[in-house]
């Protein structure tokens, strides 16, 4: 247990000691939200008159924030290996499970801190943040953040350079976000895209977060779409976490 706490704490300390990382990780999604939200407002409103694109895109940009937080925290695994810190951890008398959980939880808490700060912009997207909704959202951010961090961990453990990680980020991780319903409603897209989105596990995390932003807690508990999305998101996060532990056990040297 000590191992998990120490490694998780290290991730947080390193993150908080790099103010540029904190500013960058918040400024980028904020700018994307404002620019794209305002830019697509007219075209989007042609399809939907209920909400503006700025409002629709807000949960999507929170998902992007969670994804990027996971990417930046797991890419440090490659740096840890190159710089040598990881070899010291691997010969310490802690289990591989503690080592993986320490890294994953550290990355997830960093994502959670950023998402929490970003929640202050929710009123500008027409979302009222009552305490119950905020707690529910934090749970979902944790779940989806852990899923992303687990996936990032697996990729970082397998590839041997940050350049390789960036390549996979461009062709795998970002498309997972693009095709999750974060940018556009799946029901308005082409039929083939509809299928891709249905098979993308990230889209279920997106659906759950979107519902949690817009629907009251009382109706979420009986909303079958939300509950199904939550179930898939739970399975996905379990898979990436277990996958991270397995890959470390199978390839101990990293």
């Amino acid at each position: 247990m000590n191992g998990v706490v120490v490694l998780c704490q290290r991730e947080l300390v390193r993150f908080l000691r790099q103010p540029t990382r904190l500013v960058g990780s918040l400024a980028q999604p904020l700018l994307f939200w404002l620019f794209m939200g305002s830019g697509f407002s007219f075209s989007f409103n042609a399809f939907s008159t209920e909400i503006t694109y700025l409002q629709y895109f807000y949960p999507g940009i929170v998902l992007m924030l969670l994804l990027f937080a996971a990417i930046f925290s797991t890419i440090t695994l490659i740096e840890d290996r190159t710089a040598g810190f990881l070899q010291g951890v691997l010969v310490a008398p802690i289990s591989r499970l503690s080592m993986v959980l320490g890294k994953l939880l550290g990355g997830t808490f960093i994502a959670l801190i950023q998402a929490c700060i970003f929640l202050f912009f929710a009123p500008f997207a027409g979302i009222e943040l009552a305490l119950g909704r905020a707690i529910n959202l934090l749970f979902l951010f944790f779940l989806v953040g852990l899923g992303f961090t687990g996936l990032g961990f697996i990729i970082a453990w397998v590839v041997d350079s940050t350049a390789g990680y960036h390549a996979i980020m461009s062709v795998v991780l970002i498309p997972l976000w693009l095709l999750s319903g974060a940018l556009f409603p799946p029901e308005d897209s082409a039929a083939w895209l509809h299928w891709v989105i249905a098979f993308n596990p990230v889209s279920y995390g997106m659906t759950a977060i979107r519902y949690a932003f817009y629907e009251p807690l009382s109706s979420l508990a009986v909303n079958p779409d939300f509950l199904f999305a939550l179930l898939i998101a739970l399975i996905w996060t379990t898979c990436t976490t277990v996958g991270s532990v397995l890959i470390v056990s199978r390839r101990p040297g990293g």
Partner: protein
Amino acid sequence: MASQVIIGISKLSHTYPGTRKSPPKEALKKISLDINAGEMVAFLGPNGSGKSTLLSILTTSLRPTCGSVRIGDFDLVRNPHAARRNLGVVFQNPALDAKMKVSENLKASGLLYGIPRKQLKHRIESILREMDLCEWRDAAVETLSGGLARRVELAKALLPLPRLLILDEPTSGLDPVARQEFWGTIESLRSRNSLTVLVSTHLLDEAEGCDRVAILDRGNLLAFDRPGRLQCQVGSEVLSIEGDDLENLRDELREFLHLEGQLVDSALRLTLPDSISLDELRKRFKNRFKKLTLSHPSLDDVFVHFTGKHLSSEEQF
């Protein structure tokens, strides 16, 4: 009374699996040796000798293909987790978090090794004092000089009071002064604690300062003994001859004087027995020598004796 064996290595072999482009590589070939408690042992060999593989196995970073290693009462292969509690490791590459302070690195390491928080504070203070690092306690590791950073590595390795300290090329990248300081620290630590130290090195003077030296080449353990006794195996004096047509000279030495010479790099090296004097050689092979060097055998001569090549010349490849 026989010393207590702390490490027992028996028929240890390791083969790295091949890939589509390269065949499997046998890095260690049935190595067996025992190391006594309190000893300082050097693993000497060039790149590719197997010493890094051996150290990776001893630090539990690598699982051997076959053979066994016991550290104290633990089987390192079957129970690496328990064996790790007895190990302090200083790697060739720094294993510190450069962004964090010296004290933070020590604290994190101490907690990873399961030192209770109440004891840890006291233990960190004491190791900082012992290693003369008190004034650097709050400095970020990235701001330290190479020599100081190595000392912090050593402090980190010693924090959990290991029975066995493993140093993998610990002075690589350090200037001569920092190297000397590092070994001075190790010596004073050994005089105060009964610490067993294993060092992998390709530097002869570092190996000469150890109690015993294991010479490795291409995965084989060629010799394992005290440096002085290894040097005695070569002979009392080593003659190095430089000149033209050394191959013919070697054959003639064998034929007329029954001297077995080795052509190493651009010199003919041989051990001179007491029955033959240098003057006698010079008279018999007049004008055939450009340069004659007579010296006491070094560990490099021991390496040449066993492998037919210099340790330093192999390093270049």
